[in-house]
């Protein structure tokens, strides 16, 4: 084999974390190789994750909007509808996204190499292309950004035809008549709400008593209410004993309590695991931990100082937004560049229907940590825009400190939640008081007015606080 090609930085994986790491390094004047095993850049986020599922969600959200005008429109989609008809824009969206990212890499001089990477030693990476040809690369600095893949317990026989995972669910040709979804995390809940709106009989099953346990319980209650209203149901507190295709056309899910459920398809959404197979981490002096992820410090540096791990491969929060920032900051740290103030507030956006988004302290976390707070609430039907749009499942919650002044958290469920949350996030970032939402002018009519209503709720509660006289 020829001598390894020398680069300053090798980035393995071209998803959100890998891209930002590569761009940061090349902008710092380094020679960068970006290795991607698929035929285009972008990672699972583009091909099987965020972008395809959100494109399908747009169809479901359109149906939700039409149903609010049920007096005028009769929006029905049901079993047998071709899924491709609901994903009409997907190819265009994916191609545009891949094209944009490819151009960005080329413009910045990143050497994109297609193939599977494996460590030959701590500094040498072998890249095998799809025809089996191998080339060697060597670099002073390496970032592992290989992402994650669906976690499938060995006892569940995923066949991608009747028992599917989040990578194969959108390969269905037709909407099934019924779908059991195992799990109650972000992916499970997003697909549950989408398929229920599309007319599929959805049953969401999990051993937890409620879905999305890291989200404010009041928001989750509204999500479950909406799912139920759309014909879905949540079976909480149920372990899965067995999932079996009957050999012909149905899948039987046997619960730990002995109940069985027969559905046309099953979606296994029991979390994701780091995609480290084939990386030969041992040759670099690395090993995944007991949870299968690569341990890193606060700078995303592994125990081998010149190797960083960014994005899903290092575990939660498994958000594309966080992964991008990890990639950028890790490379800044590795190259001795100032990364800027750390992002202490990472918003979470969940693309269920209705959307859910949060940033900062939640009521439950405050209670757990013994932090006294005041909550302010605004239902979307309390603001004109919510009434006009017929949004009856929206809620915005503000968390303020015990004096009702400092803004500590924002939690929103409802249309536009993932956009709306940024208004509050910026207020928190600027250290603004709750009163900033009362003293400033919002467009009318908008859902952002809910901030004012919630802030007024806080001010009313703080006005009722006992006055403490100075000694």
């Amino acid at each position, binding site marked *: 084999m020829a001598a390894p090609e020398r680069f300053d930085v090798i980035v393995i994986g071209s998803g959100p974390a890998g891209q930002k790491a590569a761009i940061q390094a090349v902008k710092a004047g380094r020679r960068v190789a970006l290795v991607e095993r*698929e035929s285009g850049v972008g990672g699972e986020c583009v091909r099987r994750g965020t972008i395809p599922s959100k494109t399908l969600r747009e169809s479901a959200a359109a149906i939700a909007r039409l149903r609010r005008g049920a007096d005028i429109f009769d929006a029905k989609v049901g079993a047998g509808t071709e899924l491709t008809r609901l994903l009409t824009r997907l190819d265009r969206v994916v191609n545009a996204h891949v094209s944009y990212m490819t151009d960005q890499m080329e413009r910045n001089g990143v050497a994109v190499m297609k193939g599977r990477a494996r460590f030959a030693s701590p500094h040498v990476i072998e890249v095998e292309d799809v025809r089996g040809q191998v080339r060697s690369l060597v670099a002073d600095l390496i970032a592992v950004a290989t992402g994650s893949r669906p976690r499938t317990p060995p006892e569940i026989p995923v066949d991608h035809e009747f028992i599917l995972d989040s990578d194969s669910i959108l390969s269905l*040709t037709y909407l099934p008549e019924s779908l059991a979804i195992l799990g109650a995390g972000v992916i499970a809940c997003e697909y549950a709400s989408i398929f229920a709106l599309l007319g599929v009989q959805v049953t969401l099953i999990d051993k937890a008593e409620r879905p999305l346990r890291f989200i404010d319980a009041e928001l989750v209650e509204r999500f479950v209410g909406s799912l139920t209203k759309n014909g879905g149901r949540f079976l909480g507190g149920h372990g899965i004993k067995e999932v079996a295709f009957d*050999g012909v056309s149905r899948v039987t899910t046997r619960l730990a309590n002995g109940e069985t459920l027969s559905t046309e398809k099953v979606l296994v959404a029991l979390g994701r695991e780091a995609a480290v197979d084939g990386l030969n981490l041992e040759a670099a002096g690395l090993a995944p931990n007991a949870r299968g992820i690569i341990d890193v410090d606060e700078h995303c540096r592994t125990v081998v100082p010149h190797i960083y791990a960014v994005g899903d491969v290092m575990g939660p929060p498994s958000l594309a937004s966080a992964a991008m920032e990890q990639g950028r900051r890790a490379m800044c740290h590795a190259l001795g560049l100032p990364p800027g103030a750390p992002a202490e507030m990472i918003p979470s956006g969940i693309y269920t229907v209705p959307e859910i988004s949060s940033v900062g302290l939640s009521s439950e976390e405050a209670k757990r940590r013994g932090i006294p707070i005041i909550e302010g609430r605004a239902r979307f039907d309390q603001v004109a825009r919510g009434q006009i749009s017929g949004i009856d499942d929206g809620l915005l919650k503000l968390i303020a400190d015990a004096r009702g002044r400092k803004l500590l958290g924002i939690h929103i469920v409802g249309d536009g939640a993932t956009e709306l949350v940024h208004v509050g996030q910026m207020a928190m970032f600027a250290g603004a008081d709750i009163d900033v939402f009362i003293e400033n002018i919002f467009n009318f009519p908008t859902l952002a007015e809910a901030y004012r209503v919630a802030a007024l709720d806080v001010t009313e509660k703080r006005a009722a606080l006992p006055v403490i006289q100075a000694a």
Partner: protein
Amino acid sequence: MSVGTSAAPAKSESASPSDSGLAVLTNAVEQLIVAGKLPVPLLPQVATQLLQATNDESTDAGRVAALIHRDPALAGQVLRIANSPSYQPRMPIVSLQQAVARLGLSVMREIAVSASFQNGVFKVPGFEKELAWMWRHALGTAAFAKEVARLRRLNVENAFLCGLLHRVGEPVLLQVAVNDAKRSGLVAASPALRGAILDLAARLAGRAGESIGTAWKLPPPVLAAMVHHAAPEAAGPHVQEAALTSVAAALARHTLDESAAAEPPPLDHPGFALLNLYPNEAMGLLARADSVRRLVESLTG
């Protein structure tokens, strides 16, 4: 004889290019395709309905069972296949209603279409052996296509149809060419003519497939696979389906064609690169050969 890259059960000599009769025959068949006048065989009604019906809410199990009842040979085939080990029924399936209810529409679609072909949609006297091979190869391709689809997270049901129907143009062209040869006074039994007819059928199968697939209203990915499996890059948005069909056809040939057993496995097939399948993944597909053989045996029995 040869049926192009999709292989044949036996070798024979090719036609002489100087034979003007053959040139006339070739020209006549090509003209039929260009003019859109290729006689497309009618599928049994149930097969046609099943190919088109998954998104038709009016198609229910009872209606499908009633349709199959009208074709006793097909009904017998469906029951036999539904009870075969490949479909693993827990209890013997004794009625069509039960078969349809238990198997579901998508599996019934596979069985009914398969059985329809076996029951003589295509009959070309003198070419029975070649037709039998084409059918076995198509079934093997369908089975491998499902495995490739699973690996690439593509639709498994469509993949089966892509494989099953990818060379359906060939028997149609055989029929047309043999009939035309007879009308022209050519002796269809001559080795040279047989070879020429088989070559012609293989060469024009994609174009014939387009006519047939359009007439049968097949889903766009299946139609694209029929037309473009020999050159998947031309399949536009369905390049993955065309490539998986191409790869599956090569794997099926290696698995089922005894004359190809001594040849190296088709691991350097260009379709693997189009599908972004790495050498170890291609090897993994080849390891499915035994289960593919079993499925083919159960469906051709």
